[in-house]
């Protein structure tokens, strides 16, 4: 009987291959979750003048009388480190999925949310507000970045012809993005030149940082992210069809225009809310989809139902670890996390580009 089963599960048999892929997939997910968990642990406790440990959270579990924990370490973990790690997880997930969707709708593996001018739009309004040219009701950097991101995205979409009622060629979208990006960057620079002392603060924000994350920004970020990511996952079957080409997708009953609009809206929401909280953070949306695809190719078929959650996980891991490293680089001073994602992202992207070129 055993011999019979062994024969059936020979390395060449389809069932053996299926089981192997299942095991590999489970190992991949478990491994990545462990990496994320270690990253969160380090994010909560590492590189502090205070000797923080997870044990400092125990009083929270044991105290049930509602009184606030007296220990400064416990307060630091709750008030500063926890929101920071949560922001890193959510922003990483958002940017990764926004990048993935951008690459699907433009069918360009070098596309990222930055193509829609979201980062430069947010930066432009923030810089203009710092020289007193902002709109009066945009009192906080969050609002300024949010409005800038949405407006620039609408501008790119308008220029690309999204509002004309006809189907839009992906290249037109990319070219519009390049043009609007150049315009917005020019305005931002002009604003920065005139700010002088304020320019330092704006430049620091432009580098992207989550060092000053606070609980107040978590509800908006979390609710928006969960809803948008959930909707993105719900769209996955249609995305699977979309990658086969417009004609095939249309013949299979996919409303291309509605799907493009949905994806565009999702990219805008995910990126805008992330930029508003953390500033423009580069490379996450560009490299994570590539890494996710490569990993998934080894263990499963390339279905967006799996690709999207894997991008969420990888994006979170990258941001959480980049944040840990941003504290380590020039400890005790902080380095903006955006610089770290760029430093990590550049060699990874070059490696991916090399492999792709050689594969091709």
């Amino acid at each position, binding site marked *: 009987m055993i011999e019979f089963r062994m024969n059936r599960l020979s390395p060449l048999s389809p069932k053996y291959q299926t089981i192997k892929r299942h095991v590999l997939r489970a190992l991949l997910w478990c491994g990545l979750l462990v990496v994320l968990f270690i990253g969160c642990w380090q994010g909560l406790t590492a590189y502090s*003048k205070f000797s923080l440990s997870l044990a400092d959270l125990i009083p929270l579990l044991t105290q049930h009388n509602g009184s606030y924990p007296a220990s400064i370490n416990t307060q*630091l973990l709750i008030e500063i480190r926890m929101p920071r790690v949560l922001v890193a997880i959510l922003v990483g997930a958002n940017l990764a999925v926004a990048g993935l969707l951008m690459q699907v709708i433009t069918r360009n593996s070098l596309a990222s949310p930055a193509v829609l001018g979201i980062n430069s739009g947010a930066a432009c309004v923030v810089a203009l507000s710092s020289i007193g040219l902002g709109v009066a009701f945009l009192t906080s*950097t969050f609002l300024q970045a949010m409005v800038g991101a949405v407006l620039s995205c609408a501008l790119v979409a308008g220029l690309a012809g999204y509002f004309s009622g006809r189907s839009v060629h992906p290249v037109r979208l990319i070219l519009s993005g390049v043009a609007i990006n150049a315009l917005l960057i020019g305005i931002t620079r002009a604003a920065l030149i*005139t700010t002088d002392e304020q320019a330092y603060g704006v430049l620091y924000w432009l580098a992207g940082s989550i060092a000053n994350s*606070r609980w107040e920004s978590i509800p908006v970020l979390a609710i928006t992210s969960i809803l948008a990511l959930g909707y993105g996952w719900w769209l996955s079957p249609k995305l699977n069809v979309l990658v086969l080409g417009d004609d095939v997708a249309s013949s299979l009953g996919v409303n291309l225009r509605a799907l493009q609009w949905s994806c565009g809206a999702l990219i805008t929401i995910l990126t805008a809310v992330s930029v508003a909280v953390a500033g423009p953070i580069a490379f996450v949306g560009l490299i994570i989809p590539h890494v996710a695809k490569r990993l998934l190719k080894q263990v499963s078929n390339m279905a967006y139902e799996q690709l999207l959650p894997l991008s969420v996980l990888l994006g979170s891991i990258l941001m959480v670890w980049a944040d840990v490293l941003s504290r380590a680089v020039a400890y005790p001073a902080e380095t903006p996390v955006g610089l770290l994602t760029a430093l990590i992202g550049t060699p990874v992207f070059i*490696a991916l580009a090399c492999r792709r070129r*050689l594969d091709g």
Partner: protein
Amino acid sequence: MNQRPRLSIILPLFVIALIIIGGGIFIVNQKNKAAASPLSNSAGNDTSQTAITKPSVNNGVRLLTDQQIKERLPNLEKYSNNPKRIVVMENSFLGDVLALGLKPVGIADDDKPDSIITEFTQQISDYTSIGSRYQPSLEAIADLKPDLIIADEERHTVIAEELSRIAPSVVLKSRGESYVENIQTAQLVGHIVHQDQKMSQVINVHLQTMRGLRSQLAKTRLASQNVQFAIVSDKGMWLHGPSSYAGSLLSYLNIQSPIPKQMDVAYIATSLEQLLAADPDWLLIGRYNDHTLYDEWKSSPLFNQLTAVKKNQVIEVDPTYWALNRSMQSAEHMATELLQIAKRKGGESASMSSELSN
């Protein structure tokens, strides 16, 4: 096939190596720089070079010797003996020129006359703005037909050649300078306008005043406590470290810093956690915006853990004195302000500069 792994591994490794080497060189340079000018009594920009003559120390400030001044400004003959139309491209030079009784015709005031301290505006009745310090208008400067232009090393070195075509110009350190470097720059300004003797007298009077204020401060509670100045805006908080102008002035006044080891960076971007780690006894804040990140921190329970908050020792000061107008005049104002702060009783109003200006 064999090329695949090689290229895809070697190229990223090469980039990583470049980043690490570049970062290493940067860190080593920063450390060397910090080691070369670590204390408030350093001899200026070129202290790492051998001092030819023994520098004179006046009230704890190491001044430049005549020889060092001549070495740094060798071609004095190209500058007018009695300049009448001076353009200053930084507020710190404005203080030096006014101290000699000269009135500049052009000032880079960022088109914000309010950013100039009262001590200066009282002496300048009429001047032309030449735009921002970061991006001054060369046409506006040329239009003024100056006979001397004094520019900032950090901001204006790139346009030094253009400036020298307009008029005899000199590039001196201003942005990022320490208190002692500011006085040494005043010596150089005095030399360039051929008024070394007068500037020397001005500096002596200033240092006498500062010595008096320092000895008064030594008798106050500030002598045994640490004080930190920080700039706050809606984007964040920046501590002015021991190597900054405000930080080095506090050090000159024998007031301790809560972050004495952070010498390499003048302005340190700070989170609430880092502020808690520094935990200054006194926190002096200069606002750049009405609504700042600091105001948001106030709602955090951690904020109340700060010693300065517990003791009601968070004081708002005027950033135009503490950050934007580095000069002997602002140094005296800051020291006087510290004396006022030291005499305050707990619970008093927490805004100082406006009271002093009035």
